[in-house]
């Protein structure tokens, strides 16, 4: 019986942790995508201020970096969204490039 209880609680906990992680990744992806849309709309240039939106009571950090490129007028913006206090280096990254006119 003890084994059954431990197995039951163990699987439920794994399910919870898994769904929590999946939910955070979804939110991170949406935040990164929204930031890219904002960058396109505002025609922003680097550096871009980091944002700390709160979604469902969890604070995330949305950072935008611009890796150096060889071609003048061409910039690549890499947006990374992750939980603010997440010690791991996980998170969601999306990038967009553009030619400056």
């Amino acid at each position, binding site marked *: *019986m*003890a084994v059954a*209880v431990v197995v*039951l*609680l163990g699987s*439920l*906990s794994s*399910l*919870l942790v898994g*769904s*929590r992680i*999946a*939910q955070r990744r*979804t*939110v991170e992806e*949406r*935040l990164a*995508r*929204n930031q890219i*849309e*904002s960058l*396109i*709309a*505002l025609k922003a240039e680097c550096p871009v201020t980091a944002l700390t*939106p709160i*979604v*469902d009571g969890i604070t995330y950090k949305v950072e935008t970096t611009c890796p150096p490129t060889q071609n003048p007028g061409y910039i690549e913006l890499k947006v990374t969204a992750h939980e603010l206090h997440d010690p791991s280096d996980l998170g969601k990254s999306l990038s967009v490039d553009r030619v400056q006119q």
Partner: protein
Amino acid sequence: MSRVLRRQAGYTLVETIVAMTVGAIVIAAVFPVFLLLYRVETTWANASQARASGLIAEDSLLRDVRVYEVERSEPTLLLLRALGTGPTYSVTYSVKRWIDSSGQVRTALLRTVRDKDGNVLSQRAVAHGIRTFTTGCFGSTLSVSLVVDGSDGTPVPVSPDLLVTPRNLKGCPTP
């Protein structure tokens, strides 16, 4: 009593009662934890399912916003207009509510295509269970906020809101 007989004697009544009592205490301690985890899991699964429904709605919306211009954005209605100078038509997104045969309130996000005279060319539900659909176009960003019905009837917001850059050259249309 010989060793063989003692081994076959089984448990005494006291041992059985003690074992059952300890077992009951353990179950009583563990059950609330199980119940809590189960409730949390059910709530999250409900929210997750609702979000998936919201994502389906957004998918269709995103495709249209990438192709058409935003002509009018009202809190509960989004009107998109096809580009070009030829025969043009419009796409409207709105929430429809109705009562089904079992008396339950049903909702869906409708995508309606109309020609230039306002005749409906096509109308279909892009996602079911969409309780509210709110749009706002400010500056150069269209924001779309969806609240979806969870399987237990609770409203689940799809967060964060969807932000899209419309194709309009001068940004959002002025109301």
